[in-house]
């Protein structure tokens, strides 16, 4: 069965530190990849997405992610975090072609706390 794992459950960083959140998935076929963010008390918002083309994807608020097909990974990065980045981050994978419809699987999430 397809699955998505996220390396860290909870990450604590100081402001201006660099961030990298790991995401791995298990599916050998074509995928769409997403990172969502959920700020405290708010709904899920799309940070960035990969459909095809350049494996380095840039999203909103200075976030980027790199798709490494050989490693089945889609890690999220930001060079310098801010206090306002404190949120829950979810990696999601849409496995294409497996069935007659598209199914999106979410990872368990990583909680990021940024200390001023």
């Amino acid at each position: 069965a397809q699955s998505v794992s996220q390396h860290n459950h909870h990450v604590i960083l100081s402001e201006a530190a660099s961030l990298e959140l790991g995401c791995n998935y298990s599916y050998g076929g074509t995928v769409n990849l997403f990172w969502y963010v959920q700020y405290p008390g708010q709904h899920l918002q799309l940070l960035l997405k990969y459909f095809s083309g350049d494996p380095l994807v840039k999203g909103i608020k200075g976030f980027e992610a790199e798709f490494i097909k050989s490693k089945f990974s889609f890690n999220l990065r930001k060079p310098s975090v801010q206090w306002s980045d404190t949120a829950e981050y979810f990696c999601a994978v849409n496995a294409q072609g497996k069935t007659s419809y598209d199914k999106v699987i979410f990872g368990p999430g990583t909680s990021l706390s940024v200390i001023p």
Partner: protein
Amino acid sequence: EAGVAQSPRYKIIEKRQSVAFWCNPISGHATLYWYQQILGQGPKLLIQFQNNGVVDDSQLPKDRFSAERLKGVDSTLKIQPAKLEDSAVYLCASSLIWGQGLSSYNEQFFGPGTRLTVL
């Protein structure tokens, strides 16, 4: 464009009671999803509709949960009777899938969710 609308935003019920949630997707989005998000976990797909047909309800506890999308637009999710472990946020999402098969692209848009507390 208007986003995905959900109501109510919060609901508190006692176990064994019934509850219903409503979702209105983005206009033109054929695919609608209901997710359950338990505190500290990622969203888990409960049911997926394509227009008014169900394409995946493999993780829906059918003995107590039901959902419908009669006219292929808005949808309701019902729990009857509720259990303590049903306490969660219920998220509705919609998407406009374009392309086909291996060349399809699926971006989901989420509503604000309904936070259910079962006492």
